């Protein structure tokens, strides 16, 4: 099979965009275009192309939406029009018909929604990538009932195959090398369709994380949850974007940001498993200023050796040889590299690593610092032009771990929050 596709407008422009999926360590090369090329002709060009790609994507539904959502995780990486289109993709799946909802309930519970709840709104309030959400009420409690689209699970593999050529074109990655990463994504997405697993995890994670300050979780209802249905409390709050549009003061923004930092780093370093979906839509700022976390569908477990190697990089006073040894463990340097390649990749990754661990090196880090983010983007921009980085490198675990951490950084940057980064520090055994 040839991965070559005819050169279209899309391909031409995606070269210009240089945005994207963080595959392996290669992710940073995509952090490029953010502050540049905001000229109007550029934007128009982006717009036309985003439109075109979106058209094809929207036909895929299900897991393709999930991938689109993954790509749009932070709107700064992807040009704005592009991100807006992807965000809209989340709302394009056709809603389930009333009879199919009934059918799903009959199968999961042997009862209809009307029999189960005091009140059930047959019109869904929002469509997510693999299901839709309904409002319900039971014994005075406001509930959110998530119902999965039928056939989502079966269609994932085929959808991902369909999206492969898009990924090649978008991210300029060689076909064969992409597969190991695509499998990692497929695995996670398959897990997301397992609502019984999600329910178990949601309950466990919200229990383990209960002690965290300013973080709140919905209560989950196993008695109203089944193979295709999950019921939880309806959290009332503002999405991050709405929250920011109310011009909150610095103290409030810092508190929200700190809650998110604590939430993620507690999971990474205490649980070695992390809510790997830092999509702004998965958080709500509640009326008391705490952060509500919804959706535990995507959890990334970190194997211990990956964890030790990755966060080993945050240790102070590492020598060059020690760092290169860690790079090898992380498959950023390969045994097959010749001395010249080793030198080349080692140096470039070293530069990236220094940027990535900076927030950990000081007890307090100001994520409003644009200069820091500009350096990241400049680095990504430079690397993306290097033919040597056309082949993806790095452990498959990077996909979700990077997505989590840079997703978090990006949200904190949007908040402009000042964060104490020495709480829940990495726990590295040397």
């Amino acid at each position, binding site marked *: 099979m040839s991965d070559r596709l005819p050169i279209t407008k899309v391909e031409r422009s995606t070269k210009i965009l240089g945005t994207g999926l963080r595959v392996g360590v290669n992710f940073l090369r995509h952090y490029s275009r953010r502050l540049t090329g905001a000229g109007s002709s550029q934007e128009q060009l982006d717009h036309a192309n985003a439109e075109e790609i979106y058209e094809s994507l929207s036909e895929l539904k299900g897991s393709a939406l999930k991938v689109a959502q993954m790509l749009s995780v932070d709107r700064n990486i992807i040009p704005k029009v592009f991100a807006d289109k992807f965000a809209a993709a989340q709302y394009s799946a056709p809603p389930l018909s*009333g*009879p*199919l909802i*009934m059918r799903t309930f009959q199968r999961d519970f042997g009862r209809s929604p009307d029999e189960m709840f005091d009140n059930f709104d047959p019109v869904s309030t929002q469509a997510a990538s693999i299901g839709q959400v309904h409002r319900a009420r039971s014994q005075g409690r406001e509930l959110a009932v998530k119902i999965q689209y*039928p056939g989502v699970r*079966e269609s994932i593999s085929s959808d991902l195959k369909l999206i492969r050529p898009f990924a090649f074109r978008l991210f300029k990655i060689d076909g064969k090398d992409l597969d190991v990463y695509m499998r990692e994504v497929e695995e996670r997405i398959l897990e997301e369709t397992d609502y019984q697993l999600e329910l178990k995890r949601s309950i466990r994670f919200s229990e383990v994380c209960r002690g965290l300050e300013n973080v709140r979780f919905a209560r989950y209802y196993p008695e109203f949850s089944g193979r295709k249905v999950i019921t939880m409390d309806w959290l009332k709050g503002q999405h991050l974007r709405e929250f920011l549009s109310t011009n909150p003061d610095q103290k409030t923004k810092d508190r929200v940001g700190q809650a998110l930092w604590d939430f993620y780093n507690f999971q990474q370093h205490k649980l070695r498993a992390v809510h790997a979906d830092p999509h702004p839509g998965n958080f709500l700022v509640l009326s008391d200023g705490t952060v509500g976390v919804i959706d535990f569908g995507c959890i990334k477990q970190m194997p211990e050796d990956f964890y030790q190697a990755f966060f080993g990089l945050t240790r102070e006073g590492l020598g060059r040889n020690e760092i290169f040894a860690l790079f090898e463990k992380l498959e950023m340097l390969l045994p097959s590299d010749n001395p010249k390649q080793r030198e080349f990749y080692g140096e470039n990754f070293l530069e990236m690593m220094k940027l990535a661990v900076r927030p950990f090196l000081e007890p307090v880090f100001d994520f409003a610092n644009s200069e820091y983010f500009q350096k990241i983007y400049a680095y990504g921009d430079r690397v993306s032009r290097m033919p040597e980085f056309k082949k993806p490198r790095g452990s498959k675990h990077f996909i979700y771990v990077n997505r989590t951490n840079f997703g978090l950084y990006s949200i904190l940057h949007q908040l402009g929050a000042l964060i104490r980064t020495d709480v829940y520090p990495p726990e590295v055994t040397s």
Partner: protein
Amino acid sequence: MLVMPPEEASEPTELSRKDQILRAYIDFVLNENRQPPSVYTFSKGLGFSESEFYQNYSSFGAVEADFWVQVFERTRGKTTMDLAWERLRFRERVLLFAFTLTQNLLAERSFALFTLKQNRAGERAQGIWRRFHDAFHSFFEPLVSGAIESGELMNRRLLRDRYVDAIWAQTLFVLRFWARDSSDGFERTDEAIEKGFNLTIDLMSRSAVDNVIDYGKFLARNRAIL
């Protein structure tokens, strides 16, 4: 000891004899995976005469036809009894009917598969499908009329009379799909129902089709200046 009053006994036993034949026939097919060799041996096996069989059914085909009519009647009963039925739009009524149909067939899947395999169901509705088709037709025809009155469906010349046929064809497609479905809980059939009937009904509603026809008419009228 329970003594049945003789007057009332005759009607129910006749009904139950018919039912008895149907059940015995299903049982035979499920055990042997074939039709009984003849009406004679079949009746004998049940301990009654051939003529008694023919008083109730004209052939084995007629027994199978009766099975499908009963499935239809049960589905119709359950569907229209639904509390929400009166409030539902045509689209939802059709979907509810289809979901209920496949749900009802679960208990008799093996026999349904047998008759589906033996008798190619077609739009022509011949053989064992005719009675099911007729009952289907008389149930859906008034519903279609109502939906046209309410504006949910488009009243198109020529095509309008084929609306129920389209739903019938879609129903047979779903049955065939269901027969081959190997997904958990026949989930894929649910998908086939949801997507298939939605499309069928979209086509019957005001849609691009009408605009194409309308535009075609316009072009035809204005051929002179084109």
